[in-house]
């Protein structure tokens, strides 16, 4: 790394840059706290059991821990070419681990670099890329701002099958969306295994599925309902550990 690169990275990692990012993150965290308090109070107001509300918080926190750690690795991955503060912001709020590197690369090419390379980066290119990355992923938030109220009203106006206890198509559509999402990802791992002979993602997914099958068995047949809080994180952890072993064997 020559002096110019080191100097730009020093600037990108300067305390002032951390300060700007920290302010933005604190603002979004304040929004989360506000909505959390509001919905907790609303739950109490309509007579929901505090234990149910508490369980939702605990399960969501445990559910998030492992994926959040993987998001942190995204920060590490981008920190070499963009410094730490910007990736920290992008992946703490609004960004997405799966798409972020792609967006940065597309943005870098769009501003005239051959790719996301610190060797070609200038302060002007950096702030332009940062603006492209921010504006390029605002579609969902802008739609919420402009149309969510009307869309929600339209959805709530649709008749529901009440009282029968029978699942509506809305319930099945949600299950179907998730089945489709998982099928798309697992299909891509099958494709990698067959077309490119890259077996590890598919094997990792299979180990995770097997671990989850054991958890489901314990929860349903052995009535170990407490396991519901941890089954996903535990299955992922087992599969990730297995991928280290499988990676060495292969």
């Amino acid at each position: 790394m020559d002096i110019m690169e080191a100097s730009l990275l020093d600037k990108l990692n300067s305390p002032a840059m951390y300060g700007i990012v920290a302010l933005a993150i604190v603002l979004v965290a304040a929004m989360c706290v506000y909505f959390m308090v509001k919905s907790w109070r609303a739950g109490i107001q309509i007579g929901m059991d505090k234990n149910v509300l508490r369980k939702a918080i605990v399960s969501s926190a445990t559910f998030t821990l492992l994926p959040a750690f993987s998001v942190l690795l995204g920060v590490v991955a981008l920190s070499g070419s963009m410094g730490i503060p910007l990736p920290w912001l992008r992946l703490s709020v609004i960004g997405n681990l799966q798409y972020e590197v792609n967006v940065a690369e597309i943005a870098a090419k769009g501003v005239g670099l051959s790719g996301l390379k610190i060797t070609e980066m200038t302060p002007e290119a950096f702030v332009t890329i940062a603006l492209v990355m921010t504006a390029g992923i605002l579609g969902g938030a802008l739609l919420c701002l402009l149309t969510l109220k009307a869309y929600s009203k339209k959805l709530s106006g649709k008749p529901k099958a009440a009282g029968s206890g029978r699942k509506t198509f809305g319930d099945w559509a949600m299950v179907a969306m998730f089945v489709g999402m998982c099928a798309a990802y697992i299909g891509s791992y099958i494709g990698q295994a067959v077309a490119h002979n890259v077996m590890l993602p598919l094997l990792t997914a299979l180990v995770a599925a097997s671990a989850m099958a054991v958890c489901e068995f314990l929860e349903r047949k052995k009535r170990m309902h407490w396991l519901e809080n941890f089954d996903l994180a535990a299955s992922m952890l087992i599969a990730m550990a297995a991928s280290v072993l499988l990676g060495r064997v292969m």
Partner: protein
Amino acid sequence: MDNGKILSGQEKQSWFARYNESMHREGRIWTVVCLGFLLAVPFLMGLVLGAMPDMNRFLRGFINVAIIYYPTSLVEYLIYVPMLGAGASYLSFITGNLSNLKIPCAINAREMADARVGTPENEIISTLSVATSSLVTVVVLALGVLLLVPLQPVLSNPVLTPAFDNVVPALFGALGLKYFLKGKKFAAIPLVLSGAVCILMPSMIRQTSVLLIIIGALTIGVSFIFYKKGALEE
């Protein structure tokens, strides 16, 4: 019951309408403030670095990114809002990591609370879940960034690389088993189709976001046919 009171059906509907109204008002205010600040960040960074964004290059880069991500955002919005409700939607689209984290997290919490889509309970549980998930992500990342320098040798240890490279397969393997059991009558169709598409057109392997939308829409269509034929009765 705790401190709350049991509301009649009509009282609950009226309360829910007022709650949603305030959620939209406050959600919009927070969204404007957060988006405004997020868009200001590159310019504030520019002040520190002594350079401002080049607007011509910005437009070129923005068009390239928006062509891919704005249609995806529209589809995500149409699909995820009915699952999440108003409060969680405002939060999710600002805090990001939707399909890989916020949506599974909210659905998991909703299932545990046994709340039905479109009910006040679902609205409350989803908002609590997404807010918690966002805060945990913020805290983990903040701690991680603080520890980044001493942690870097551990994180970049080649021994752990396969584990971190395979977080997403681990997530979708475990989640897949759960949901394939729930939708066992139709799950094989999208799975076989998705596998076949990726084998026959290997370029789709890298286009998971496109594949996800196509297979997701198709699965909803298949489940609709099964539902109409009464094949999904328990």
